[in-house]
């Protein structure tokens, strides 16, 4: 209570202090007495809440009790605007309420006299509602209301008595309303029993008080605003205790319902202007900034203006901390003092360490920005506007990092104390890891210019125009990550390494990124980590695949991209959207999504994957028609898409990326590499790649080679000899290259051929390939082996290895059961012998000369 009032006093004095500074004590006394008056008047009108009805605090320097509720309100509200006006408004609101109440009560009592209980019932409902509203606005319970309730109560009992005597019944609906009112009154009377008793005890006195009200309410309105100075303390610099009392009250009300956060913020803002004591300033900031976040905790994101205010506050806090670096420090490891007002003891360096977390504040601010990115439509200009704020937060993060660097010795980076630094560094990394170096440099430039010339970082030197751009960017990332790698908490290390991999992959350093991914051993345990980390892992992996593609490492690219590109949930996997059919998204799910500017283009991803698949699959399909059946799932999606494409009755010109690729693969299958290359190069999405020309050139070259391979596979059974020179001309490749490709194919036994170097041609050897029947026979042999194994197991009683030992054990106890076992195996063995009898005959022929291939198959498995 008291402190609330204090708060009121201070916020008043903001506006009034200049005049009040010189106001004499007399004036104050006078004012004090006027406020006393004011209090008694309003007290008489609005009975104060039961809990403070007869508090003794009235005597300490004219502080207002009950009415202080609405007085305080008025002060809070008017903070920035003209005092007089607002006060009038507030008063009139109260007056209005009062008028409404009294008119309502009049109607009720009139209706009651008429015996119109239906009207009484409805009006009484309204009355109760009004009073509730009054209570919500901290106006207390008006006495006229108590009076009305008491009178009604009495009337009801009278009516009941009369009814009993006369035995005359009321009409049904009236009786119903009557009963309702009776019950209501009972309830209400119970709530305010104390006051009602008071009223009953001394009806006149109560009445007298009420009669005074109307005039009293208006009194403090016009000249009463000077009341602000009423308590002498409001003038001059606020005393230490008062600041902290306010803070404590706010602290106590935090997280509770029905707390007017806005007014608390305004109050704190007022306090800020008045004090210059660093300790107070820091304390106020530490309280104010979280309040700002609390205010919009429930909305989708913080409004931009509020966000900027919070940002300014944090910057100011950091400035204060920096200015007083030798006296005060704020960290999470600080020790909480018993009371807010007590300064913590200075440590050996003379620095007083306060508990608090600038890192959390910065993180929260960053989160709010992310939230706003998440909820703004990314195609609106608003999004772009908001994106500009990133440089603000980035600068703040750098600043915060510098602050932590200054208070944490470098030797402690790897300890718990360094964790706050690590958190800030992680945020910094989060902001830059997905950007091309030019953008990184840009934000660095902005940050360092804002920070001014003096600032210097331990972790990584500051940006200057002389430093080489790309080197600086990767150096920065390296340095940031190395801070995180030293952290004892594995979450930092994992995030750091994934961001690091992402960065390298993004900047075309495939081998570096791949080695890091392999050495991190993250794949094995990534399933158990939290979703965000998994998303980051997927992003890094996809980026790695794209990087491999750009560098012409087709097989690697296909491998890396495959799982995500073929997944129906790819959006979800990359944190770029929810599953299409997911029914409801929780708040948490939404927050997990990445803002639009961090997205990886899914079409590009698909395009790269399918192009890589095309280069791998088309020759493979040509090499063996049975191919699709044998190969593992990896290639299915491409095969399926291709088959679907081929089934299409009407083939229009290609429309989307996939159409282009499928048309290209059809062309390549026919050996028309030039058309395939044209089709692939006309895909528009390549424009997103930064080195699209070199990628296109790479693709063309790959298509020539794969076209050659496909051609050889398809035509090998039709030719006896092929001239290398003509092949080279057909595929526009140098003869050396053709030679190399063919040699490789011969070496890996993909084709059965020989190179005749003298004549410059390739000689195919026909009839070595196995036929389908032979292949079937081989599989049959496998199956037969399987069945034989099964039967052995059956004979062993279902166990795989310990046939003999097991039966020996059993024999002791169950001689009658072993018989069943034996007969059992007799029956079971029968079908297999049958199968085996016929099988070897079929197989042995096929195996002749085939064992070479067979063994090869086996070794592959």
């Amino acid at each position, binding site marked *: 209570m008291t402190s609330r009032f204090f708060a009121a006093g201070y916020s008043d004095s903001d506006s009034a202090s200049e005049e009040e500074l010189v106001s004499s004590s007399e004036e104050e006394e006078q004012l004090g007495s006027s406020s006393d008056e004011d209090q008694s008047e309003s007290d008489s009108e609005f009975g104060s809440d039961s809990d403070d009805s007869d508090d003794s605090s009235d005597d300490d320097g004219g502080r207002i009790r009950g009415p202080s509720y609405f007085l305080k309100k008025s002060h809070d509200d008017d903070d920035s605007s003209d005092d007089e006006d607002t006060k009038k408004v507030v008063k009139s609101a109260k007056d209005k309420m009062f008028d409404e109440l009294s008119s309502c009560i009049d109607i009720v009592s009139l209706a009651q006299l008429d015996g119109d209980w239906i009207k009484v019932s409805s009006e009484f409902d309204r009355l109760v509602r009004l009073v509730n509203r009054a209570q919500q606005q901290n106006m207390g319970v008006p006495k006229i209301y108590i009076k009305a309730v008491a009178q009604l109560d009495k009337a009801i009992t009278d009516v009941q008595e009369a009814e009993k005597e006369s035995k005359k019944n009321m009409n049904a609906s009236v009786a119903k309303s009557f009963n309702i009112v009776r019950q209501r009154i009972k309830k209400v009377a119970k709530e305010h029993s104390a006051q009602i008793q008071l009223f009953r005890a001394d009806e006149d006195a109560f009445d007298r008080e009420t009669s005074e009200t109307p005039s009293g309410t208006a009194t403090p309105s016009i000249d009463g605003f000077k009341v602000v100075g009423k308590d002498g303390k409001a003038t001059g610099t606020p005393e230490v205790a008062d600041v902290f009392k306010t803070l404590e009250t706010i602290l106590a009300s935090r997280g509770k319902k029905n707390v007017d956060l806005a007014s608390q913020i305004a109050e704190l803002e007022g306090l800020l202007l008045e004090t210059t004591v660093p300790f107070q300033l820091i304390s106020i900031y530490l309280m104010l900034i979280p309040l700002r976040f609390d205010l919009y905790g429930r909305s989708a994101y913080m409004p931009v203006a509020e966000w900027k205010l919070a940002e300014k506050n944090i910057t100011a806090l950091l400035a204060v901390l920096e200015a007083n670096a030798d006296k005060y420090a704020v960290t999470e490891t600080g020790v909480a003092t018993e009371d807010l007002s007590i300064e913590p003891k200075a440590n050996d360096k003379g620095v007083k360490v306060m508990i608090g977390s600038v890192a959390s504040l910065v993180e929260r601010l960053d989160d709010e920005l992310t939230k706003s990115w998440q909820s703004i439509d990314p195609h609106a200009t608003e999004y772009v506007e908001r994106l500009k704020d990133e440089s603000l937060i980035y600068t703040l993060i750098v600043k915060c990092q510098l602050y932590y660097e200054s208070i944490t010795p470098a030797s402690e980076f790897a300890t718990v104390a360094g964790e706050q630094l690590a958190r800030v560094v992680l945020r910094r990394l989060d902001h830059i890891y997905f950007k091309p170096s030019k953008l990184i440099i840009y934000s660095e430039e902005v940050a360092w210019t804002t920070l001014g010339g003096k600032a210097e970082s331990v972790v990584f030197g500051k940006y200057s125009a002389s430093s080489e751009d790309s080197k600086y960017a990767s150096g920065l990332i390296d340095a940031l990550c190395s801070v995180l790698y030293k952290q004892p908490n594995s979450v930092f290390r994992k995030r750091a390494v994934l961001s690091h991999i992402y960065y390298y992959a993004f900047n075309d350093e495939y081998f570096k990124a791949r080695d890091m991914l392999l050495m991190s051993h993250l794949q094995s345990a990534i399933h158990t980590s939290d979703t965000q980390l998994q998303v980051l892992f997927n992003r890094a992996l996809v980026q790695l695949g794209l990087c491999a593609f750009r560098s012409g490492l087709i097989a690697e690219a296909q491998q890396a991209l495959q799982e995500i590109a073929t997944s129906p949930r790819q959006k979800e996997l990359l944190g770029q959207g929810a599953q299409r059919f997911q029914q409801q998204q929780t708040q948490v799910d939404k927050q997990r999504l990445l803002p639009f500017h961090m997205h990886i283009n899914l079409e590009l991803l698909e395009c790269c994957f399918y192009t890589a698949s095309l280069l791998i699959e088309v020759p493979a399909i040509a090499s063996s028609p049975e191919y699709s059946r044998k190969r593992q799932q990896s290639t299915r999606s491409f095969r399926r898409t291709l088959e679907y494409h081929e089934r299409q009755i009407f083939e229009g010109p290609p429309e989307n990326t996939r159409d282009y690729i499928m048309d290209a693969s059809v062309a390549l299958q026919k050996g028309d590499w030039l058309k395939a290359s044209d089709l692939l190069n006309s895909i528009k999405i390549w424009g997103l790649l930064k080195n699209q020309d070199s990628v296109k050139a790479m693709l063309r070259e790959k298509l020539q080679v794969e076209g050659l391979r496909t051609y050889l596979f398809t035509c090998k059974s039709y030719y006896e000899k092929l001239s290398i020179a003509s092949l080279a001309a057909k595929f526009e490749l140098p003869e050396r290259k053709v030679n190399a490709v063919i040699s490789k194919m011969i070496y890996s036994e993909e084709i059965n051929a020989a190179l005749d170097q003298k004549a410059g041609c390739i000689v195919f050897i026909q009839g070595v390939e196995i036929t389908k029947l032979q292949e079937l026979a081989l599989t049959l042999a496998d*199956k037969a082996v399987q069945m034989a194994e099964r039967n052995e197991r059956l004979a062993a009683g279902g166990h795989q290895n310990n046939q003999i030992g097991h039966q020996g054990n059993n024999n002791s*106890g169950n001689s009658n059961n072993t018989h069943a076992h034996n007969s059992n195996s007799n029956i079971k063995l029968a079908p297999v012998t049958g199968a085996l009898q016929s099988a070897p005959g079929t197989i042995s022929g096929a195996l002749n000369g085939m064992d070479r291939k067979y063994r090869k198959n086996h070794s592959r498995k």
Partner: protein
Amino acid sequence: MSVEINSSVVLKLVRVSEDAFPHSISGPVYGFENSVSHVYAFPGNHSEDATVRPNNVKFQSEVLDLLKQAHIGATAKGWFISAVGGKFLSQSLLESMLSQRAAKQESGDDSPVLLLVHDPSKQQQGILSLGAFTLSENFLNVATSKEKYTTKNLNANDLSYKNILQEIPIKVHNPHLINLTIQELTIEDDHNILNLSNSATAAYTTIDQLFETVDNFNYNQGNFHYYQRSLSRELPKISQWKQKAKLENLNKLKANPELTEKDLVSLDDWSKHIKLPTEPSRFENLVLSGLLNNYCNDLESSGVSELLKTFSTQKGLDI
């Protein structure tokens, strides 16, 4: 016992199954006593696995009614089925045959249910592959007994995959008019029998089917392994319990030698305390084994003729 089949029935069978090839087709056959006089294919699509589906029962009885209206006193004799490489055997087929047999017995007809099997793949080489089967006594005994398809029961009735069905010799009967017509025909020998082309495509499908059956068989075997293992876990428990019971009995006898058998714990009471896992039905296994047998026999027989051709060609060409 043999079955007499009208030549017109055979020709119709051949035509119908040729039309459906490579799919399978089935239908009811009608006739008198030990002869088959009429055959109709089931309407509708012919799926990969021909079965005697329940909704075909209606068709069956409708045809029978029509026959009666035409004053032909033929009765339902069973089914025909066209299948490549002996693929006809299936659980549902056997069950349908059983149920028809039961229905027949109810109406006082004790003739066996016939199953005519035709393999259209042999057709291309000018071979008529037609067989008539009926459910064997052993199988009937097992199927109608209480224990159904347990290993013990199979053993007791000496039923194995080889004798699920019993083959009946076929006699193809020509009506006299046809005999006369044939007499008038001059049949040219086109030496078709000397055709050396191979029947590899038929072998492909059979082998593919064989693979599938082997996989199913292995799967079924796995289930049985599981049963075996759980059984072997229970057996020691039983013997332990028996020993414990024996000891208890001895102690009781020592304490009071006048106890009669009744007061003692019977050693056969173990089933009250320990529950053995129930043996899975061996029916599927039986059918799969039968199928495997059919495929293998088919491959063997076709393989023999192929080999013969190969060797004779080799000899003839003097390679």
